[in-house]
């Protein structure tokens, strides 16, 4: 078992004929992901790597029955692409795109909340269920099938920990990068809940960062609802406080954004907190 995606997920790539989209589509097919086709407005009827290209998500869904979409289009088009997928009945949208203005993401979330669609990202590496499916840009060779669930706000830090787990002989159910932007579709708490409910996931690794209060919410969820062991790492303990102007951010967040407050909250919730990400495997032994 895995969360969110498995070998039956049928995937379309929005932006399949683009440089990024094309490159990662090939990698996903190589990994064995069931890529059903792609969408590039104006290129409907063409083929890419033996997969049909459509003008709209609606027609792609109608013909292929796809239930998952990977959005790999530039920031100026990504908010529209996410909404198009959601309105076409896509169940899960994974958005890789970086640099989307916050204001646009707030509007996207407003529209998404009226559909049953889940968004992962934006500005994320996507997800990887080892041996089953890869939706995004995580390098497949670092992961092996197993019973650890990995969730992270970062990209390469996720690879670091997944690789360390694999080296230690500890495989993963699903590795998921939820993205580093201020507004994201799927939170730590959402993913922790899915891991807690997934029968094959026995242990969970959570990788956070300074800023925001997502890790504080995660700690509350771990304390109240998690029965499975959790190991955590928070990046940025050495980062100096930025040149912050204005009080509004501090009024919303209080002191919750610091590494120390997040580490304390996770520890108090029963998670084992690593001071070095390469310690995560031993903390889950």
């Amino acid at each position: 078992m895995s969360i969110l995606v498995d070998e039956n997920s049928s995937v379309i790539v929005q932006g399949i004929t683009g440089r990024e989209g094309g490159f990662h589509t090939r990698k996903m097919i190589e990994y064995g992901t069931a890529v059903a086709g792609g969408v590039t407005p104006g290129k409907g009827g063409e083929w890419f790597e033996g997969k049909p290209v459509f003008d709209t998500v609606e027609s792609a869904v109608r013909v292929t029955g796809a239930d998952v979409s990977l959005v790999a289009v530039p920031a100026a088009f990504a908010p529209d692409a996410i909404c198009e997928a959601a309105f076409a009945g896509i169940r899960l949208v994974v958005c890789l795109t970086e640099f989307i203005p916050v204001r646009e993401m707030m509007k996207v979330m407003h529209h998404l909340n009226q559909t049953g669609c889940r968004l992962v990202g934006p500005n994320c590496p996507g997800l990887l269920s080892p041996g089953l499916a890869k939706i995004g840009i995580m390098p497949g060779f670092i992961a092996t099938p197993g019973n650890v669930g990995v969730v992270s706000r970062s990209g390469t830090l996720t690879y670091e920990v997944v690789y360390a787990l694999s080296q230690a002989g500890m495989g993963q159910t699903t590795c998921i990068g939820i993205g580093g932007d201020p507004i994201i579709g799927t939170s730590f708490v959402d993913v922790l809940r899915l891991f807690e409910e997934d029968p094959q996931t026995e242990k969970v690794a959570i990788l956070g960062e300074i800023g925001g209060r997502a890790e504080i919410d995660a700690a509350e969820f771990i304390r109240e609802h998690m029965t499975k062991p959790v190991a955590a790492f928070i990046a940025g303990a050495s980062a100096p406080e930025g040149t912050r102007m204005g009080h509004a951010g501090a009024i919303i967040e209080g002191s919750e954004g610091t590494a120390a407050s997040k580490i304390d909250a996770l520890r108090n919730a029963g998670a084992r907190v690593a001071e070095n990400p390469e310690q995560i495997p031993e903390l889950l032994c």
Partner: protein
Amino acid sequence: MNLHEYQSKARFAEFGIPVPMGEVAHTPDETFALARQACCAVVVKAQVLAGGRGKAGGIRLANTPEEARDHASAILGMQIKGHRVRSVLIDPAASIAQEIYLGIANDRAEARPVLMASAEGGVEIEEINRLRPEAIVREHVDPVAGLFTFQAVRLASAMDLPRKHWRAFGQIVAALVRCFEESDAELAEINPLVITEDDSLLALDGKMVIDDNALPRQPQLAALHDSSELSGAETMAREAGISYVRLDGQIGCMVNGAGLAMTTMDMTLLYGEARGIGPANFLDIGGGARADTVATALRIILSDENVKVVLCNIFGGITRGDEVARGILTACEEVQLKVPMIIRLQGTNADEGRRIINDAGLSGIHAAGTLTEAARMAVDAAENDL
């Protein structure tokens, strides 16, 4: 991107928010001339992208043009939290009956902007939030529909604002929300918004932070970017699409990805702190960086003379190990590498990258297997040179 106070207030004025009619001076003599024109007491305010200006002595009242000139002499060139003051804003002094706080910022968890207001404005607003959060009233704004008029009434009523000010206050709230939205701001704040002794409302101080991701579609705001606040290395980084923040340690870090870059810094401090060693910088070369970006990153790191060792930690996903290796060799041809370099390559094409580095046979370059090993080697190398 942070805007200066004078830039924020000019933007507020475009949306109809009443602000003092101030002007910017760069020298004491300009200050004298502006103060004389004003025909009244003025406030000389340091224009610098840092908080805590008042406490640092960067905001002073002057009753005469001569006094204003003296204050400007003292303030210009002053360092406030590491930022040098290059200009001052000369505002006519206001007679203040009450100070209000009014701000709007993005609430991440709610995915909506939130307006915040308090009848107890001023510099202690964060302290008030900590001790008596109920003294700050909040109102979320719908990202699609925008502000409803009744929401400003709710704020005014909840903060016990005298009724005679509700109309003016409501207009300022509406204007601030529009200014925030149309500027793609992450923060727009008036603190204090004052009620003057003649019963009018005036935005005495203003702060705006613009979403960097929106700058491509906000050319008018992007043009306000103050590059004098950036060092040469920071400007070079900005142009190459590299995130760089200089710190005060000895280990120059070159990493791909912000999370891993922070982690690499954390590791150098974890093993080095007891020996007085830590990171010299945060540097993220970004995803899929090519050889020339890597070379630029190395030049930026080496421009900091505190750097005793370079720690390069690359976990390749879309970034390829062979590209990184070629970039390091290119940079080494141009800049003489006088300090040791620890290289740890993992992930996509890492084997080929390691082969390229080994074949080049450069002295002073050492390979590390794990992040832990790399961080320990860097700390040892930095210590040997201290």
